[in-house]
């Protein structure tokens, strides 16, 4: 049970993720505006961010790197997602905690989410 923020400009994906994660017992906020990510995190007390890599006009890795630089939010775990299989390394070097290639299995998504939340909960 955690508060999760989804940043993806594709509404269907956003809602699908929301539905799955809510089914998994989490509280989910969906945003299509990557520039308001920090604001959304602080406003909703977010514990985990799911961030798409290719958002119209914005590269998710830039958003991720910015969050990592920002003292207020730099500790928050970020899972980056992309339909491109070979960008995992790029995302991780931008500071992503984990990378998931689309399309993913529901089980994998839930497992990874819980694993990261647990780890994060333990370390912080």
């Amino acid at each position, binding site marked *: 049970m955690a508060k999760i923020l989804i940043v993806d400009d*594709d509404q*269907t*994906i956003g*809602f*699908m*993720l929301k*539905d*799955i994660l809510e*089914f998994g017992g989490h509280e989910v906020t969906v945003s299509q505006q990557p520039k308001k990510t920090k604001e959304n995190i602080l406003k909703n007390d977010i514990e985990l961010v799911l961030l798409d890599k*290719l958002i119209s006009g914005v590269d998710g890795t830039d958003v991720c790197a910015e969050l990592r630089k920002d003292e207020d939010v730099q500790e928050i775990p970020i899972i980056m997602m992309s*339909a*491109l*299989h070979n960008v995992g390394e790029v995302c991780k070097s931008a500071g992503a905690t984990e990378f998931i290639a*689309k*399309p*993913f*299995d*529901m*089980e994998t998504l839930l497992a990874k989410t819980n694993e990261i939340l647990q780890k994060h909960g333990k370390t912080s």
Partner: protein
Amino acid sequence: MDKDLRIQKLEKELEESHKKREKLEKQNSSYEKSHAQLKEENYQLKGLIYSSTALITFLKGPEYRVEFANNPIIKAWGKGDDVIGQPLFDVVPEVRDQGIEEYLNQVYYKGEPYHAKTLPVEHDINGEMVKSYFDFSYMPQYNLDGQIVGVGVIAQDVTKQALLNQKIKKSEKEFRGLVDFMPHKISIADADGNTLFYNKSWLDYTGMSMTEFLESHWTEIIHPDHIEKVEKERKHSLKSGKTLDLELKMKDKNGDYKWHLHRSIAMKDDGIITSWVSSSTEIQKLKEEEQRKQDFLKLVSHELKTPVTSIKGYVQLLQTMINGENDKSKQPYLHRIEDQVERLIKLISEILDLSRIEQSELELNIEEFSLNKHVENIIEDISYSHKDVQIELEHLCECDVKADKDRIGQVIINFITNALKYSPDSKNVQVKVFHEEENNVAVSVKDFGIGIEKKDINRIFNRFYRASSMNEKTYSGFGIGLYLSNEIIERHNGKIFVDSEPGAGSEFTFILPLNQN
């Protein structure tokens, strides 16, 4: 005493006369000897002149009468032995106006020898003017008083060499024309790689003159990022004599760098490098196309994956929810949806695999399976989602194959979905599994649709080729299905082909060999 004295005197006279006679006899024999010697020398000289391959004649007097002519020159004139004693210009009147008389006069009247190289002369041989080339020497001939009495002519027929030289010159001119005419950039360098020649295309591209270009260093026009690589490979080629083959960017006259495919090949004589011939072909457009293709494939894959991701997510969510219910009747349907989504995902991945396939990196997972069952299952799946079609399956043989099950399935699906797609009026498709030959197995898919025009038949297995009709948008698809099918079957060492008649339908067949490991 007188008598004795007289006798003595007579004896002395007799003795002297004897001596004189002996002397005379000796003299005579010596004359005879030298005469014979002279005769022999004369004979040898004549023999030498006659047997010489050089053309030799002696022309006497102001009429240039043929005093002597050896066989080669008589042959060159195209005449017989009866020329001896006749004036030259009676024998070969045609040469008079070809400058020969002038040369002879110069020698005869002024005593100046005349030499000529590769002089063309036309002789009338049996009514036909035959052009030959000669190296000539005209020499004045003197009598004992030092007066000029005639002209000696020694000539060598150099027609063969002259014609060969002409041929070489013509060939060189043609090749130079060719090299300058073609859009490729051609250059020639010595064995050490120092360029000696650039063709017109090179000069046009760089905007430099031949001298400017030859004086510039070869690295000047190469993109800074590529110099190191080119230098390394160039050194290796110069050392090993191996063909240089690389892609690099080179600067044009406007300072823009454009992609080129460059090749240099060593010209060898007895295994020793004598020179290097190089060609550079601009492939800028090709490179741009390649990039556009990659970008397009990325975009397609990305755009397709997004909706598929949410379909898959919801299907899995529904499955999890239904698993908790007592009523299990809905489960198989969700399974089918999930299977189809998986297939879709696979197809989308294959779009990205296109480039991999082109580089022969398509991996096959070979397993043994029943081809008949596989075809059956696929038809069942397709019939399930296409309620209005009739797919007939005929097993003419039962056969297990060792192949990549998914890839073969992909080919069968492609054949059947194509058959349905291009049969707007008839939804009848006939599928057959049979032995085309004893050691192979074939699957054919026959439809009664629009068919394929003859001109298109060879192109349908090409990448991105799509059947066109009046309205380009009539048929959906990427145009890679048959291309992929062809590649898949080829990787299985099989064959793929089509029989078709426009308006009557098509029959696609693939054959797999059975005896392969």
